[in-house]
């Protein structure tokens, strides 16, 4: 059982950070949803808020870690131009390789079926939209910490926070889902 450096970083970027992100999101959303008038006692509010602060800040930090490792560590391996202008380095390949056919080359070469769209649409969207998650998640973490229990009577503010929180999650889902599919079709090795 062995993982190369590249495989290890894709695991950190996608699997570990992604799992933590999902857990933090689920906990945070449940916490935000229950911050309603008449739902909680003062003792329960304090206890619930402690968990909520952890959830929203973990989600914010993890979203930054995910996009930074993805963009600056994993992505250069994905997009390296190794195969030449007509992708001759990918001729006959069944998978990408680190010497002559990067995952991007492999997808654009269509050497293994109609794979071009995975890059042209999937990767191009994922690499940009995922960066919206940390902007939104950090704003949510700040607002939740700033207002605390005051969010309970302020329905409008709580609704805005939930919308932004779900928006951060949706951006991460686009990034995560396309990342998982692309790594299936053209893994970074």
């Amino acid at each position, binding site marked *: 059982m062995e993982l190369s450096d590249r495989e290890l970083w894709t695991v950190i970027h996608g699997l570990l950070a992604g799992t933590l992100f999902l857990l933090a999101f689920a906990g945070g959303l449940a916490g935000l949803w229950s911050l309603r*008038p008449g739902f909680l006692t003062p003792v329960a509010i304090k206890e619930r808020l402690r968990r909520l602060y952890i959830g929203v800040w973990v989600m914010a930090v993890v979203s930054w870690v995910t996009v930074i490792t993805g*963009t600056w560590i994993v992505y250069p391996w994905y997009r390296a131009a190794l195969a030449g202008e007509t992708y001759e380095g990918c001729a006959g390949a069944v998978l990408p390789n680190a010497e002559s056919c990067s995952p991007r080359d492999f997808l654009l070469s269509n050497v293994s079926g109609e794979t071009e769209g995975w890059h042209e649409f999937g990767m191009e969207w994922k690499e940009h939209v995922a*960066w919206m998650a940390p*902007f939104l998640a950090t*704003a949510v973490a700040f607002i939740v910490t700033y*207002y605390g229990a005051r969010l309970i009577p302020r329905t*409008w*503010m709580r609704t805005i926070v939930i919308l932004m929180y779900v928006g951060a999650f949706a951006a991460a889902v686009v990034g995560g889902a396309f990342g998982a599919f692309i790594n299936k079709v053209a893994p970074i090795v």
Partner: protein
Amino acid sequence: MSNQNRTQQDVERAPEIAGLDLAHRTDGQAAGAILAASIGMFVLGVLTVWNEASESMHDWLESWEWGQGVGPLAGKTTVSVIVWAIAWIVLAVALRDREVDLRKWFWVSLVLGALGFLGTFPLFFRAFAAE
């Protein structure tokens, strides 16, 4: 509405927070955080489209990669983060201790964020590709 009235109104809506002794919080700081996030998203969308439309912009954005092989994505994201951080700091200072109409700020932010989102959508930004 005065701070005292606002706090009183909060307690009337949710009596359970009365015992928590919460100090008043103005909405300016929240509005600043929301608008700054949408500005970051908007800038990312604009740079993504601009990168397609202009070769010189593409080269400038690529120059942010510092030899790491990230390409123009380095510039798009780094510049967006810098603008987001500066916008948040400026708004935090400008809106400190100010009450604002959160609904207005939210709708403006929603429009900016939606435009940013649109700018990052491949079928949209490719329409601006330089020949």
